[in-house]
C-alpha cells in the first residue's frame, strides 16, 4: 500500500533526519514506527502526507509516486491524528468531525449522517455531543473525536503521531483497546508513531525500530522479541521481559529495589 524506496531527508543545516530508509506497509495493517527521540520516526510519518518533503528517494502509495498527487488532495484522503489532538476550539464537535467532508464538498445530509455514525462508533451519543465545544470535553473524549475526525472522509490510510501520548495511563489503555476494536472493523492501513514500546507491541502488526534516521529492524512483535537484530533492539525492549507463546506475548516485570 505504502512503499518507501531509499528515502532520505537532510535539513539545510546539515542534520540528516532520515537516512536512506526503505520499507513497505501492507494494506490493512498497523505499522508502528518506534524509536528514541530524534530517531526520525515523526519525520518519516510526515513524509507520507507531504508535510515534509524528502530530499531523495521515492514514496509510492498504491504504486503511484506521491509527487504525482496534488498534496492538498492527498492530505484530504489520508487521516491525520496528532498528539496535541488539535481540535479547533471555535468549532463544535460536529463541525470538527465534519471538516474534511466539508473540504471535499459533501452534501449536508451526507455529512450529518457520517458525523452521527462516527460519534456512535466511538461511543459518544450524537445528540449530546454534536453541538458541544472541545473545551467542554475531557482529554479522552477529545482524542476519540480526533480519531473520528481523521476517519470522517473514510480514508484508506490513517497516520497517527503519538496520538495517546498526552493522556493518562487509564484513558490511554482504554483508547488503545477501543482503537484495536475499531481497526478490526475498519481494516485501515495505519502508520503509527510512538516512543512507548508497550504501546507498539500491543497495537502493532509490524514494528519498525528506528535509530538515528535508519530502520534497525522491521518485523512482527513476536519476531522482534525472539530474534532481536542487535543489542540496541534488545536494550530498547528494555527491562520488560517479554515471553512469547505462539502468538501471545506475556510480560514479566522485574523491579530491583
Amino acid at each position, binding site marked *: 500500500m505504502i512503499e518507501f524506496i531509499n528515502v532520505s531527508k537532510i535539513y539545510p543545516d546539515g542534520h540528516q533526519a532520515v537516512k536512506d530508509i526503505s520499507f513497505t506497509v501492507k494494506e490493512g495493517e498497523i505499522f508502528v514506527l518506534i524509536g528514541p527521540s530524534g530517531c526520525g520516526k515523526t519525520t518519516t510519518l510526515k513524509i507520507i*502526507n507531504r*508535510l515534509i518533503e524528502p530530499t531523495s528517494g521515492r514514496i509510492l502509495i498504491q504504486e503511484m509516486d506521491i509527487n504525482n498527487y496534488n498534496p*492538498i*488532495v*492527498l*492530505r*484530504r*484522503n489520508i487521516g*491525520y491524528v*496528532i498528539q*496535541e489532538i*488539535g*481540535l*479547533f*476550539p*471555535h468549532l463544535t464537535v460536529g463541525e470538527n468531525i465534519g*471538516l*474534511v467532508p466539508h*473540504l471535499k464538498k459533501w452534501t449536508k445530509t451526507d455529512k450529518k449522517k457520517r458525523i452521527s455514525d462516527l460519534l456512535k462508533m466511538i461511543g459518544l451519543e450524537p445528540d449530546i455531543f454534536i453541538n458541544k*465545544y472541545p473545551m467542554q470535553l475531557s482529554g479522552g473524549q477529545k482524542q476519540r473525536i480526533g480519531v473520528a*475526525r481523521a476517519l470522517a472522509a473514510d480514508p484508506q490510510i490513517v*497516520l497517527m503521531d503519538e496520538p495517546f501520548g498526552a493522556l493518562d495511563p487509564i484513558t490511554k489503555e482504554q483508547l488503545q483497546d477501543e482503537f484495536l476494536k475499531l481497526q478490526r472493523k475498519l481494516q485501515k492501513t495505519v502508520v503509527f508513531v510512538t516512543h512507548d514500546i508497550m504501546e507498539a507491541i500491543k497495537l502493532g502488526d509490524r514494528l519498525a525500530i528506528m535509530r538515528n534516521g535508519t530502520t534497525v529492524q522491521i518485523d512482527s512483535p513476536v519476531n522482534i522479541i525472539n530474534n532481536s537484530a542487535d543489542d540496541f533492539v534488545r536494550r530498547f525492549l528494555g527491562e520488560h521481559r517479554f515471553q512469547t507463546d505462539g502468538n501471545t506475548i506475556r510480560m514479566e516485570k522485574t523491579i530491583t529495589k
Partner: protein
Amino acid sequence: MINFFNFFKDRLSEIALLTLEHIELTAMAVGLAIIIGVPLGILLTRYKKLSAMVLGIASIIQTIPSLALLGFMVPLFGIGTKPAIVALFLYALLPIVRNTFTGVEGVEPTLIEAGIGMGMTNFQLLYMVELPLALPVIMAGIRTSTVINVGITTLCALIGAGGLGQLIFRGISMVNANMILAGAVPAALLALFLDFLLGQMEKLLSQKN
C-alpha cells in the same frame, strides 16, 4: 450646571448633527483602516521579515502629534473631510495592523499543523482557522483604534472637517465654557459608548474560544 443644560437644550439639533458628522468621520477612517490594516497584518505573518519594518513605520506615525499630522495633510489634500479622514486613517492603522499580526501569529502551531494535515489550502487555513481564532485580538485592536480616533476627530474641526470639535473650537474662541462642554461631553460619551459596545463584541468573540 443648569446653564450648561439650557445651552445644551438650545443647541440640541446642532449638537446632534455634529455628533453624526463626528461618527461619520471616525467610522470612515476606522473602516478604511480595517479594510487595509487587517489584510496588511495577515500579509506580515506571511512575510515576517517585513513585520519589524512595517510595524515600526506605523508606530512612528502614531507618535506624530495628531495636530501636526492634520497640518501636514492640508497642503496635500486641502481642507475638509478628505485630509481629516486620511490623517485619522493613518492614526487608526497601527493598533489594527499590530493586533491582526499578533492575533494570527498567536494561533497555536498545532492547530495550523492539524489544518494543513487535513488538506486545507492556505486560504482555507486563513479563513477557517487563523482568522476566527485571531478575531478577539483583532477586535481589541479595532476597539483601541476607534476610541483613540473619536478623541482625535475633535481636532479635525480645525481644518474644516466638522464634527463635535467644531463646538469646542468655537467655545475656545468665544471663551464660552458651556460651548466647549457641549462639544466635549458628547465626544467623551461617544468614546465611552463605542468602547463599551466593541468591548461586548470582543467578549462575545472570545467566548467561542
